[in-house]
């Protein structure tokens, strides 16, 4: 995984609560056995009509949001299925940061493992950013992980919480499996003691 230090990107406001992973990546695309190439199927049923043409009303299809890399959305984003195809699709499309008042647990974990930063801000703060991203042209945010700050174009910033270990893993792009494997002897001791 590539280290995540700071990201500056165009914001896409997706003003809806409880967006589930079935919407992020519908099941017909879960049959692939690769990790890549899911971006074109992101939010498929909202992005495209039945005949495959694009739905001009959906936010990702608006011209001004085409290069978006920061998704701003409602509470409980990523609820439902544990499919990691959801963050794979978001990443492959280009999103590096998702800002919401809350995330579903498994989805949030899956984001960290793929170098997407889930940022939790208060409902009021998210609503403010949503409004700005909707009404202002080319609204870009700077997200600094080391300082745990979301910095607005006017220089005003708000801080966010992140677990220290998770932060460290993202900053350094740590291979978590490799990290656990350094404790191989402790795992073996545990197995011996538990007679597993």
């Amino acid at each position, binding site marked *: 995984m590539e280290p995540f230090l700071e990201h500056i990107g165009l914001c896409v406001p997706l003003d*809806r*609560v*409880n967006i*589930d992973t*079935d*919407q992020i990546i*519908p*099941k*017909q695309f*879960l*049959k*692939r*056995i*690769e*990790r890549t190439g899911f971006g074109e199927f992101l939010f498929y*049923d909202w992005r495209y009509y*039945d005949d495959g043409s694009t739905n001009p009303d959906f936010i990702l299809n608006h011209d001004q949001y085409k290069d978006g890399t920061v998704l701003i959305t*409602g*509470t*409980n984003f990523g*609820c*439902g*299925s*544990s*499919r*990691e195809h959801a*963050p794979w699709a978001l990443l492959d499309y280009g999103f590096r940061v998702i800002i919401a008042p*809350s995330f*579903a*647990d*498994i989805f949030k*974990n*899956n984001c960290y*493992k*793929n170098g997407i930063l889930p940022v939790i801000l208060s409902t009021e703060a998210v609503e403010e950013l949503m409004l700005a991203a909707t009404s202002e042209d080319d609204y870009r945010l700077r997200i600094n992980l080391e300082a745990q700050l979301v910095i607005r174009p006017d220089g005003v910033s708000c801080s966010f919480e992140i*677990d*220290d*270990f*998770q932060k460290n893993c993202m900053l350094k792009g740590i*291979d*978590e*499996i490799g*990290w*656990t*494997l350094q*404790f191989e002897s*402790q*795992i073996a001791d*545990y*197995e011996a003691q*538990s007679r*597993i």
Partner: protein
Amino acid sequence: MSPKTMFKKIWDNHVVRESQGEATVLYIDTHLIHEVTSPQAFEGLRLANRRVRRPDQAFATMDHNVPTTDRSLPITDLISKKQMETLTKNCEEFGIRLYDLHHSNQGIVHVLGPELGITQPGMTIVCGDSHTSTHGAFGALAFGIGTSEIEHVLATQCLLQHQPETFEICIDGQLQFGVTAKDIILSVIGRIDIDGGTGTVVEYTGSAIKSLGIEERMTICNMSIEAGARAGMIAPDDKTYEYIAGREFAPKGEEFDKAVANWKKLSTDSGATYDHSITISAADLAPQVTWGTNPGMVINVTETIPDPDKMPTQHQKKAAENALMYMDLKPNTPITQITIDKVFIGSCTNSRITDLRVAAEIAKDRKVSSNVNAIVVPGSQAVKRQAEAEGLDEVFRSAGFEWREAGCSMCLAMNDDVLQPGERCASTSNRNFEGRQGKDGRTHLVSPQMAAAAAIEGKFVDVRTWRS
């Protein structure tokens, strides 16, 4: 020693390493695997030249995209076929036990785990599927994981975890006739909402929970994730031990007695506290029907479709408006006036033998409405064999239900069992998200009894008073 919750006991028993500022290295006893979320994990192992640490603690099956029609015929969906072949190849290469499409143990991963005695109290169990919470019904700590974590477990038999909070949901009192485990859990989700359990592990307690059979307890724990909880658990008791005894992977003889003695120590100590608690009176519960596009949008069968204008917040109003538009429903319509096109009895929530028995009891000597297409999909080959031995397949067939092979089927519609656009389904599954059962398909989640009765009537009815 200070009193502990059941969750904390199991957690503490599985800590391999704990250090300030680090995630806990938690040992995983059992890893369940299926074809959809695992290919990229095995590929990751190959790319990093890593081995599977404990193939003996992994069990794989094919369930998500398997056909439920005649299995002697070739699989026509070539992409699904490739995914199944990939699982076979991966299991062979890494030495993992596989119950493939034609194996007599094949079934939905959360049905076969308990059925084979793989699921036992006190264990940590994971699977790349959010409904892994099902196994908590035995007093295990069981939760769903993503594909990166599948790879982590394969390579290390451990996961990096942060300790969640605990949430006691106490269901006390006696359920009315016709009110089931499914109605309990749907009511819970309706009450705490679909993110009410986020960041927590739920323990279900109370006399109503104790009175439930093991398979009903699985229905409850299964849907913990629909309230956002990582896991749901129920303390093991004599019913649990009886259920496990004699199953293929259960301890045998003296080992079993020793195991039971240990399992009896797992229950939450008196005086232990939970981070959150609620109590619900079982007697007040009615059969539930979802009306919207998530499992928290649920009401009693006797109620009418909610009016978005009466929702307390703008977000809820907008969500309700979106849901009603998708579901093609009007505010204030009685649930019992909603007609349906399809009925699906199955899924890891409600496809076990007890679910099929209660549905068959309703279907017996009756006919599925001429406007309805209804299918019954047993959760596993073993459930199918048992049902056929009891003649339930004949009951369903003569009533006009289709009797299928085991798999996830129309719960997530990855195979050919799909709703057509605009079709409305009474489903015993766990999610009514937009498009879940097919693009523009409309799902109403209900109990097996409610689904069977809806199939007969062509619309929702209150099973408590129906043809009484």
